[in-house]
């Protein structure tokens, strides 16, 4: 399929890998920000195919993983109410709350539904006028315009029985926080291609100047990722620190302006807690005054006081900051598996622990995956969109 096959080409990937091997003279640690990139890297075995001097550190870019436990517990509390239909992206259902997950609420009779698009939740609202439809609005900048549009449409269409539990997070403040942290050593960043598709990459320009660290906007296919690594290593070897774009077919410097406009219409920046990491200033979105009617936390004020209980074994906060690899967690594959997860990073389709569990043991034959052709893969991926 166009725009997929050519970016999964083994020969091109090998050529780029060879080129990295030719120019690299010392060790570099690069962080891929997005969990989707982490999965692609492990699936195609790139972590093992890159020259040994290059270490890929997995970043915090998994909105499911960083959604605070408190919000998950609130979601679970709302989903249990008989007057609520709780609507979510599929990824959230298996994320462990303090006591249970959304799947078990559904199994116990709660009305929990998975949608493909947030606009589908408006259809559900129209079909069920006697219930309140609560949509779990999570995601990075990539998802924010879609969620914002659902809220704006609810207002335009006069749909009153709709509310959103919002836990939106944004990438640049998280990168700044990582760069400020004394424990984190990252030489260069592969920025998340779809976040930048929406927001552009001008936001990284002051960051790059301030911290003197290269940022390369990178896509998700093996060729894209190796290309991003090559551009980043080139900068490091030449002593440059700039923002470059290795995903130009989708990303423009200014981003998608109509999408940014709807985010700004509905949401405004706020401080947000990240699960396992803590509060990062101005790293999320909350409703603007004009849209607070749709804020589920205000519509259901009695869900505010819920005591949370995090697993004492889980070190996902360190995994999310790139301080530990998932297989360095003592519980990895023992107390914690995708069937019995202790942390969100083990169940999210973008979680680093899930990727390590799923692909690590197939690493040696991973190149077979690399050449997998999209006509067998895409329809099922598209179904899960």
């Amino acid at each position, binding site marked *: 399929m166009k725009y997929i096959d050519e970016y999964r080409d083994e020969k091109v990937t090998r050529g780029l890998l060879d080129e990295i091997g030719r120019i690299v003279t010392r060790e570099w640690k690069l962080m891929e920000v997005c969990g989707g990139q982490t999965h692609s890297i492990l699936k195609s075995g790139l972590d093992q195919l890159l020259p040994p001097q290059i270490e890929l550190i997995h970043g915090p870019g998994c909105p499911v993983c960083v959604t605070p436990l408190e919000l998950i517990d609130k979601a679970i509390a709302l989903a249990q109410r008989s007057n609520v239909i709780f609507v979510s992206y599929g990824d959230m259902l298996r994320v462990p709350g303090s006591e249970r997950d959304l799947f078990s609420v559904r199994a116990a009779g709660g009305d929990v539904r998975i949608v493909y698009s947030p606009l589908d939740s408006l259809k559900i609202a129209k079909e069920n006028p006697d219930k309140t439809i609560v949509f779990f609005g999570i995601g990075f900048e990539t998802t924010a315009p*879609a969620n914002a549009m659902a809220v704006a449409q609810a207002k335009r269409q006069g749909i009153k029985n709709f509310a959103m539990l919002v836990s939106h997070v944004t990438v640049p403040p998280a990168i700044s926080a990582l760069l400020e942290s004394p424990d984190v050593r990252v030489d260069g960043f592969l920025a998340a291609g779809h976040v930048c598709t929406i927001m552009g990459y001008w936001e990284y320009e002051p960051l790059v100047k301030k911290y003197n660290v290269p940022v390369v906007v990178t896509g998700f296919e093996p060729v894209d990722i190796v290309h991003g690594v090559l551009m980043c290593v080139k900068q490091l070897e030449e002593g440059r620190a700039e923002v470059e774009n290795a995903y130009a077919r989708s990303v423009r410097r200014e981003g998608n302006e109509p999408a940014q406009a*709807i985010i700004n219409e509905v949401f405004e920046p706020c401080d947000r807690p990240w699960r396992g990491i803590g509060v990062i200033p101005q790293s999320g979105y909350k409703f603007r005054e004009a849209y607070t009617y749709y804020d589920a936390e205000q519509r259901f004020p009695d869900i505010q006081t819920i005591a949370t209980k995090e697993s004492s074994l889980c070190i996902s906060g360190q995994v999310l900051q790139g301080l530990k690899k998932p297989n360095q967690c003592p519980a990895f594959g023992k107390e914690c598996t995708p069937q019995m997860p202790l942390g969100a990073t083990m169940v999210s389709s973008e979680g680093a622990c899930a990727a390590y569990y799923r692909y690590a043991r197939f690493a040696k034959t991973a190149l077979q995956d690399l050449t997998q052709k999209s006509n067998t893969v895409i329809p099922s991926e*598209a179904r899960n969109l």
Partner: protein
Amino acid sequence: MCLGIPGKVTELYEANGMKMGKVDFGGVVKEACLEYLPEIEVGDYTIVHVGFGISQLDEEAITPSSTSALASANSTKRKRMRR
């Protein structure tokens, strides 16, 4: 979560005041909101994320540091496009 899949726009229409379309992902056709892509037309490619087109893919985009290996990827792409 940020998963996005490229597909070809096969139909455009309006619903609830929004620009909508059908997008073909190698045989699987889905509805997508294309409100954020004012210039997109039938036949163009977009990346779809949670039911929304987020970018209009640029066939001519060649990254600044085009390398020899990548140049060959681009020439394969060209060949495919001509067919």
